[in-house]
């Protein structure tokens, strides 16, 4: 859990999201290392799910490409094991509750500790259902990172108080994907979060440019970018490492 904290120390964090196995795991390994080399503070690794209900069309496409390529939870664990031979920044998994449930919470979390995964983001596991996995998360030191949404209102304090790792603040209504504007009053949500926890909070959903990333990170502790990166991978396929690296560089420099 301390490793996650370090991602936010003395800087605004830039957090890329990458779907594992899109288009294949070798490419994912190269893309992750390129993101690390270019200043990513923490990386969200997506374990693909057949029916990702919180994702827009871009990340849905990545999930589909990865699964059609034959990627499985076990193969992704092998990927992380390999990445950890040289990658030192915090790594967290983003997936859906059924992927963890089906693998078995105990088996999944113990694997996370063994391969060096620091946290877990499950968009279909709200506060009320944390009990599903929380004991196993605690047992194996995997931070269960909560999401707070523009509609959370009276729930923000409760979620923030129980949070672990960092808080994923969803910038806008709807699913993941680029947006022309973000109208949510991020500052006032962050204020309530700060009153209830010392954990850092990063904003995600709808961020694709350095300007927007800076604007969001200025209001919080960092910016999370998914769809914009997936679009690069969609375009460049197996040759994505370099263009993703350049993109991450542009984004991290924008946050300075």
């Amino acid at each position, binding site marked *: 859990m301390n490793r996650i904290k370090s991602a936010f120390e003395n800087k605004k964090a830039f957090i890329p999201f990458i779907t594992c196995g899109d288009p294949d795991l070798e490419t994912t390994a190269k893309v992750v290392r390129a993101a690390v080399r270019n200043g990513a503070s923490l990386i969200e690794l997506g374990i693909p799910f057949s029916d990702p209900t919180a994702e827009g*069309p871009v990340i849905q496409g990545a999930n589909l490409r990865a*699964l059609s390529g034959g990627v499985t939870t076990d193969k992704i664990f092998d990927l992380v094991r390999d990445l950890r031979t040289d990658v030192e920044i915090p790594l967290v998994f983003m997936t859906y509750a*059924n992927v*963890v449930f089906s693998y078995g919470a105990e088996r999944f979390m113990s694997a996370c500790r063994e391969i060096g995964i620091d946290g877990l983001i499950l968009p*279909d596991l709200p506060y009320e259902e944390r009990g599903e996995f929380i004991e196993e998360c605690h047992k194996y030191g995997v931070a269960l990172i909560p999401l707070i949404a523009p*509609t959370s209102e009276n729930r923000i304090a409760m979620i923030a108080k129980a949070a672990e790792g960092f808080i994923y603040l969803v910038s806008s209504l*709807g699913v993941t994907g680029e947006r022309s504007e973000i109208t949510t009053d991020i500052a006032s949500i962050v204020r309530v979060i700060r009153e209830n926890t010392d954990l850092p909070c990063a904003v995600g959903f709808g961020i694709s440019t350095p300007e927007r990333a800076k604007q969001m990170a200025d209001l919080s502790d960092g910016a999370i970018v998914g769809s914009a990166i997936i679009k690069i991978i969609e375009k460049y396929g197996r040759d994505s490492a370099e263009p993703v690296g350049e993109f991450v560089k542009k984004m991290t420099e924008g946050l300075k």
Partner: protein
Amino acid sequence: MSESKGRFGIHGGQYIPETLMNAVIELEAAYNKYKDDPEFNRELNALLNDYAGRPSRLYYAEKMTRDLGGAKIYLKREDLNHTGAHKINNVLGQALLAKKMGKTRLIAETGAGQHGVATATAAALMGMECVVFMGEEDTKRQALNVYRMKLLGSEVIPVKTGTATLKDAVSEAMREWTRRISDTHYCLGSVMGPHPFPTIVRDFQAVISKEIKEQLLEKEGKLPDAVIACVGGGSNAIGSFYNFINDKGVALIGCEAAGRGIDTFETAATVNTGRLGIFHGMKSYFCQDEFGQIAPVYSISAGLDYPGVGPEHAYLHDIGRAEYVPVTDDEAVEAFEYLAKTEGIIPAIESAHAVAYAKKIAPKMGKDKIIVVTLSGRGDKDCAAIARYRGEDIYE
């Protein structure tokens, strides 16, 4: 930590994005406020009776009974409801509730199109905007229902993702709800999804078993020995079972769509072939692979072509109170044709799954026994598809 809500044994719960949590909490509060409100119930009953045509008939299928030579068979005629299926019971309840909540727009998923048509109908009646999500594959299988929804003033959005069937329509409707919540109610069509939907939909469909009980007591002076209904998500089945759950002498039998057979991959028989999982807001049984990826399912029936089952059915299965049996495409089509020829009633292909199982067990039961089969909908929508199944191309 607050408790997980809406559990049926280990099943149910609220596995949804945080963005939707306050929406379902608001819905639960509104439902609790109105469900026992005399004015709300007076309005709803007036709609159910005068608009939808309730109570639906309980018809003694004498020719079928004689032909099969065993138990007496009654048909609960939900197919005679306005819009042609049981779906209207739930939709009128939810639309009225949404209206009380100040919502002006309904969104819905649909498989066969019956729930979509019912939602479009209620929206037209109550002056609400309506958008229906339907798998692209199903818009082809059920073109007539697409036209009906448009005629009723609804927008129909073909869903191209995944298998382009009911599960993808549910996913897309959930995504749309996270996009637009404040003026929109998600009118979920079955006893599935996050709490409070499985409870709300069950309560609105429970009128089916309430009527069966009253009608059969009047006709026969006793309860049925078995109640049979088809199960996709399971709304007509839970409606048919609910008021008999405590009557232990009444066998409750849900008929799942086995497609080409439960020993093939082309099946949608969730209880028979699935395992415990978490999807679409609920913990229940799902068809899935070893890593929890939801399986593409198959049935000739667009309405039963779903990889999960409502959490209360999963619970009734766990405790052995209800039995869930697989019925194949072939058996359902044969029953579809049989009921048309024997009783002059063309059932929905979904309901034909229940008819098929009744045909199987009635001859083995004594003549003093009674079976009630719920005909959840009528089969006009299926005629073109069944003709194709038999190798005949007809124009709709």
